[in-house]
């Protein structure tokens, strides 16, 4: 039997010590201030959404014979991830949903070694309509578009990354 040395510490962190001091601010005040700060970055965020969108469109419209290679898909995933982040930060819920759906599809295609550009293109066209300042869509129209995107995912039976995929389908970026 192997003897294993084991220690249990009960450290008091500096963070805990500092947070215990008198003064400071209330949660609601801190949140109000932070939200203002983030909203102050809206212009930067919108610029980044537009740039990422332009990069994705340049990639997909250069697809040859309706195919996108692995490198193009990976690049597209990075840009789409950026859009998801911005859209969620600034509460553009429909754009966030469409971008997440694009990530699901692109990731699914990569995982299966498929190169179809069509499901990607339809997602990008939907996202273009949802970019702030683009089309003025009614609630029903947005719901219809998102439902159609869901049908594309269902057709390929891709799992949703946001809902947690089985371990064997996960992206391999996290290196230990």
């Amino acid at each position, binding site marked *: *039997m*192997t*003897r*294993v*040395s*084991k*220690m*249990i*510490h*009960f*450290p*008091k*962190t*500096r*963070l*805990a010590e*500092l*947070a*215990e*001091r*008198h*003064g*400071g*601010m*209330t*949660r*609601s005040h*801190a*949140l109000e*201030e*932070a*939200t*203002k*700060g*983030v909203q*102050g*970055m809206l212009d*930067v*965020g919108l610029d*980044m959404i537009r740039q990422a969108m332009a990069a994705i469109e340049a990639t997909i419209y250069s697809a040859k014979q309706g195919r996108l290679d692995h490198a193009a898909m990976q690049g597209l995933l990075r840009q789409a*991830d*950026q859009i*998801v*982040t*911005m859209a*969620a*930060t600034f509460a553009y819920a429909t754009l966030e949903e469409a971008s997440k759906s694009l990530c699901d599809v692109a990731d699914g295609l990569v995982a299966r070694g498929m190169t179809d550009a069509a499901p990607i293109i339809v997602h990008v066209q939907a996202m273009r309509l949802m970019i702030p300042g683009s089309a003025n869509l009614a609630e029903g129209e947005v719901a219809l578009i998102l439902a159609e995107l869901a049908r594309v995912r269902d057709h390929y039976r891709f799992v949703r*990354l*946001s809902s*947690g*995929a089985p*371990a064997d389908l*996960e*992206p391999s*970026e*996290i*290196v*230990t």
Partner: protein
Amino acid sequence: MGERRRRNMSRAKINLGGVTTLLVDGDTFMRGSIAQMLRRFGMNTPTICESGAATMAHLEHHYVELCMFEAILPDMGCAELIRWIRRQTKSPLRFVPIVVLTSYTLHRNLAIIRDAGANLIIKRPVSPQLLLDSITWLAKTSRSFIETAKYVGPDRRFRTLEPLDGKHKRETDVTKIGDTVSLDDRNEQTFSEPSLNRALAV
């Protein structure tokens, strides 16, 4: 949540003034927005590093109260960086609270980060509410710190269920907060590796 509890939470104050954070994230916008939130919470402007190697070099000579890492760094996985911090003999650096920000919340990825010794994993994008509540939780919650051959980091067990057989065998069941105890020294208890793994399982 009850109305009274919600009101109490809003009135309760937390003092994060003077708290220094080390923020490691390759995404310029995310870095900017998190730094903005931290400053608005009253914390110091965070120190920014862009790679794992730069972070290690910084921590060799500086102390921070909180670390926030992106899960995927340009030169290494954040798990490697966390393990390096947790194995530093220089206290209190090894005990520093570590928060990992990740978009990939698949279970296996989370398990890798948890088992490296992270305190908390936050799904990106991060809202001000989530960030503040996470920092508050880290500051207000006392967690024991486990050091074994295979794992160094905060206790990964969150559930406090009674043992199935009613017998308390966990070491922390008999240890008072505030002590640092070597179990081998305390009662000459011997652990086989399999039983140790079971004890640390979440």
